[in-house]
């Protein structure tokens, strides 16, 4: 696949040297090492940590933020940011819960999909056609959507019993290794988005639009269409997250997931994706999500209080990122 022409630089440094730098230069080594380290430490700290049940718990606790973080990754790859994504998912849960009686399970899902996609399309149109800063646009829709959720829910919460809406709460697995379908959805969303970003033209255009917008424009990429599609996709993913959320907590609550935006951005940044666009991957985001989940769970298992957990999480996240930087700097 690769041709070395005779004129290129001699590519023959001693093997031992090369092997090491090759590993350390991979963008995800840092976060991955941090994740593995955390797992090892907590396994020693608590005998319960590595049990199938507990690992399944960590997976379940990561479902909603994990799914939303995929969408956030794609938006950030275009040099954007989405502050409204959590609010869209919350509105999605409320729409599902309130329409399921009259419209039925499938109907409720479709209505929620339409609503989420419509909001995504509004974000996308403002960002692409009017070239407004995504921060302001999504802050605006965040405020508006959150208020709309409150008004629509009449500030009440809605328990959900429909088997279709809570479908992703069901168990599956083999022997002691059981988890919920929601974890499966999480995995599938990651695989699909990974494929789209890496193996399709649309994915390449996402990187191009974020990496060098002028160049993307010059090469004839339809920037507006790419951005619009990205925000619409965000709406779709938010709807999936909403559905999975009802599987995990069968209750639609306008006050839920208020920190989802910050949480998803944190997962994305820990995963090594640049906030300036054009660089990063969803795999990093998955690792970032898991790091946060493992810390939260592990610190509880070893009996650390919330207040100290917050401090510890902050410090450990900084360490994880620092580790990454240092590993990469050694090879520069």
């Amino acid at each position, binding site marked *: 696949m690769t041709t070395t022409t005779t004129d290129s630089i001699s590519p023959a440094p001693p093997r031992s040297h090369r092997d090491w730098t090759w590993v350390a230069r991979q963008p995800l080594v840092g976060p991955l090492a941090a994740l593995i380290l955390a797992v090892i430490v907590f396994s020693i700290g*608590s005998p*319960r940590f590595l*049990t*199938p*049940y*507990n690992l*399944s*718990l960590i997976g*379940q*606790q990561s479902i*909603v933020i994990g799914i939303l973080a995929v969408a956030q990754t794609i938006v950030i790859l275009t040099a954007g940011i989405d502050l409204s994504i959590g609010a869209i998912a919350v509105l999605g849960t409320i729409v599902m819960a309130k329409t399921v009686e009259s419209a039925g399970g499938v109907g409720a899902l479709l209505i929620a999909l339409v609503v989420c996609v419509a909001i995504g399309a509004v974000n996308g149109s403002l960002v692409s056609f009017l070239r407004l800063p995504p921060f302001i646009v999504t802050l605006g829709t965040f405020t508006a959507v959150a208020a709309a959720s*409150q008004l629509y*829910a009449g*500030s*009440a*919460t809605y*328990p959900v019993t429909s088997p279709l809406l809570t479908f*992703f*709460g069901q*168990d599956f*697995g083999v022997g*002691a290794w*059981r*988890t*919920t379908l*929601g974890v499966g959805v999480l995995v599938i969303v990651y695989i699909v988005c990974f494929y789209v970003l890496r193996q399709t033209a649309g994915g390449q255009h996402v990187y191009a639009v974020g990496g060098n917008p002028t160049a993307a424009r010059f090469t004839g990429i339809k920037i507006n269409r790419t951005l619009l599609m990205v925000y619409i996709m965000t709406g779709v993913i938010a709807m999936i997250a909403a559905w999975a*959320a009802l*599987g*995990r*907590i*069968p*209750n639609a*609550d*306008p*006050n*839920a*997931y*208020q*920190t989802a935006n910050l949480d998803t951005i944190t997962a994305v940044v820990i995963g090594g994706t640049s906030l300036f666009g054009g660089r990063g991957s969803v795999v990093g985001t998955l690792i970032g999500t898991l790091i946060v989940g493992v810390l*939260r*769970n592990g610190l*509880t*298992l070893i*009996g*650390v*209080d*919330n*207040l100290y*957990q*917050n401090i510890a999480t902050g410090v450990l996240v900084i360490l994880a990122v620092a580790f990454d930087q240092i590993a990469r700097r050694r090879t520069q």
Partner: protein
Amino acid sequence: GGSGTSGSTNSGGTANVKVGLITKTDTNPYFVKLREAAKAEAAKKGADLIALAGKFDGDNEGQVTAIENLVSQGVKGILITPNSSTGILSAIKQARDAGVVVIALDTATDPANAVDATFATDNKQAGVFQGKWVKGTLGSKTPKLLMLDGTPGGTVDDFRHNGFLEGMGIAAGSSEIAGMENTNGDQTKAQTAMENLLQRVPDANAVYTINEPAAAGGFQAISAAGKTKQITMASIDGSCTGVQNVKAGKIGATVMQFPAKMAQLGVDAVVKFAQDGTKPSGFNDTGAQLITDQPVTGLDSKDTAWGLQNCWG
């Protein structure tokens, strides 16, 4: 959600009893008091208390995660100030199925029998006390009411708000409500909100506040506008700062709640369960007490001296 069952029963006999406490947030002074009281009680009883919390009011996901992790950790009992919703019920059910005793503190679940027992205040009743006092103080004047609310959709917020209106004898949406603003229970936001409200309704004469920080912010704005004489303001909480403010005349009256009492009762119940398997049950009202130095006839109240002895924080 959630799956499987865990071997959460405490196998080691030598270890301390482990008690989990889950509050709505870990920054609200009210919950901080509750946490501190629980810690103290646990230390006294030789139990280990792990204190967790949601990230914000309404963080169901955070509370569910906390329940799951505590069960996985192997606690004997969980004390929880549940969020508004029924959202955490299935997680509570799984915890109970795993042999953990679950007690609601401060706020009842819906339905109440989703937990083993409840040690709580009736927030609606507290709101009614606040409303009755304001109405009594206004006397024959037609109320022109400004409301400094908390967070839209919070259960406690709704209970207090509705209770207040009931105590005042005002229907929701009545024209006597001259303005409402959300303050998130934050003093700064409350001050800004009151400043702006007073610009719109300069002749307001009654103010409802969701909690004492909101009342402090409200007072700041009212006194800057020189309207302290004209306006009657009350609050709910019963923190020592709040009672001080009542004593200083900044707040007309406050309704005291007793977080420490709830926490002590809760911890005791879990420890007892660990010792002899007795489960607590039922709703146990820990009470609400109107505190003011300007009593209204026909309304039970205590003065600020009593308040300062019994306040929290």
